[in-house]
């Protein structure tokens, strides 16, 4: 059972380049999320999705684009990377919207992105 995976795990790119971070989950969870984690800011929500073709902006969406054509995939694209987007990016998924007390978000291992 692979769970939730992210690729690449590490990425170095240059300012102005387009970068896509991949997220894949094998549970067929409806909900998926993208966060960035930075020192001094903690985890901040970038985008979230309740189902295929349904996405919403989170706290820090500027400069990012998401799509969700298939339930299991939720790629995050940096259209024109900037140094301020250097961060650790986490993808997460959950089965329902806390409709059961056991619901939780499961996190991937993260992608460390450096923008030079």
């Amino acid at each position, binding site marked *: 059972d692979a769970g939730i995976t992210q690729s690449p795990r590490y990425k170095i790119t240059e300012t102005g380049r387009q970068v896509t971070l991949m997220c894949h989950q094998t549970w067929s969870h409806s909900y998926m999320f993208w*966060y960035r984690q930075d020192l*001094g800011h*903690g985890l901040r*929500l970038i985008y979230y999705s309740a189902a295929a073709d349904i996405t919403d902006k989170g706290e820090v969406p500027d400069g990012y684009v998401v799509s969700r054509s298939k339930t299991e995939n939720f790629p995050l694209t940096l259209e024109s990377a900037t140094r301020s987007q250097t961060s650790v990016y986490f993808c997460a998924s959950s089965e329902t*919207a806390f409709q059961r*007390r056991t619901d939780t978000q499961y*996190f991937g291992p993260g992608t460390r992105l450096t923008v030079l």
Partner: protein
Amino acid sequence: QKEVEQDPGPLSVPEGAIVSLNCTYSNSAFQYFMWYRQYSRKGPELLMYTYSSGNKEDGRFTAQVDKSSKYISLFIRDSQPSDSATYLCAKAKLNSGGSNYKLTFGKGTLLTVNP
């Protein structure tokens, strides 16, 4: 004011100590509260989950929620070196129809338990 405020730490304690980690929140619309544990260079994992005021125990861990004062706490008894990690408090907010939700996290507290 950030919706979830967490004591930043870092916190260093000897093995066997009782650890208290705390958060406050500012929006009463939030209903569900969680504690996540994050080891270095790993993704967060759920530790405790509660949706009401009061205490919830799970082994050496106790989560406490006081909705009247908007305060959430995590207590770790008999702390172990393996408890060394960053602890994140979080709260979940449903939309009005209950069809979507998002989590808001505190900044995290780095805990080190020394042998």
